């Protein structure tokens, strides 16, 4: 079943409506620095500054390594993130983010650098106990077109507060289109955050490390 349909079905079953993960905009006048290591097939680093709570600007570097052959993409980009809609509910928050940008991609099989564009969207929903997000992003150049879909479903064993450590158990599913990876990669993650510091780590279904660290200040 494709990941998007699975995500929507999961939400309906959970009665939760929609989906969250690390947000591309943390808060107004905030800077976000993020680094992710994805099971040896995806590595990404990003830096964003938000002049407004609904807008952040910055850039990143994404490396995709095929688990099918030896193809590799190294994409360096600038990006603008926009909070298209936020619902502030009494005990929950839901968001819709969209983004787009451009940069340069190194295509290993051609030994070439090409102009690359990116666009994406994220829908998330979270309370202090449950959390869900669906993110889809497209990276495109003359030589490739890869869509990366990431679903995260999380549950917290207790409700954290402003100055206490938040603990989450997160199930992540990820698919990359364009023939660079096969199937959906599932991972179980332990996420910890307190104030502006966030760290998560876990393992994929085949035992590979999946980790992410983020700071907001």
């Amino acid at each position: 079943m494709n990941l998007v349909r699975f995500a929507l079905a999961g939400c309906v079953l959970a009665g939760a409506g929609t989906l969250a993960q690390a947000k591309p905009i943390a808060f107004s006048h905030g800077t976000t620095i993020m680094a992710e290591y994805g099971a040896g097939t995806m590595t990404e680093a990003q830096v964003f500054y938000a002049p407004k709570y609904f807008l952040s600007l910055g850039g990143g570097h994404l490396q995709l390594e095929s688990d099918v052959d030896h193809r590799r993409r190294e994409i360096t980009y600038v990006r603008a993130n926009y909070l298209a809609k936020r619902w502030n509910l009494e005990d929950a928050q839901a968001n819709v983010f969209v983004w787009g940008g451009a940069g340069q991609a190194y295509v290993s099989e051609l030994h070439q650098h090409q102009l690359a564009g990116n666009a994406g969207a994220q829908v998330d929903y979270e309370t202090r106990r449950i959390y869900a997000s669906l993110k889809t992003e497209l990276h495109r150049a003359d030589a490739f077109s890869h869509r990366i879909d990431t679903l995260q479903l999380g549950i917290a064993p207790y409700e954290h507060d402003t100055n206490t450590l938040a603990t989450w158990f997160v199930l992540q599913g990820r698919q990359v289109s364009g023939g660079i990876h096969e199937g959906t990669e599932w991972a179980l993650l332990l996420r910890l955050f307190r104030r502006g510091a966030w760290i998560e780590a876990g393992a994929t279904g085949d035992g590979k490390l999946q980790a992410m660290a983020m700071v907001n200040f």
Partner: protein
Amino acid sequence: MKKLSFFAFALLAGIAQAGTIEMKVHGLVCGFCAQGIEKTLRRNPATADVVVSLEKKLVAVATRDGQDISDAELTKALIDSGYEVKGITRTQRSLDEIRAGLEQKKK
């Protein structure tokens, strides 16, 4: 004597104005929410201290002696942080008392 009375009055008025503003806010679900709100409110020169409680959906601001922050300014600060204010009340509880109350509830 008149001068002394004037200073005493001014001092008392200043103390009376240095109060606590408590706001009920929706959408507070994570530490990042609190961090953003605190950062915005602390930029106001009248702010002495800020407490955010996710559990109580509460944002409390202590103002400096003799200073105040209008409801309109507070509402704008919260909107600029991406949140909605559902109610504003002015109390005489200090932020230390509010913090103590929140700690007590956790125990």
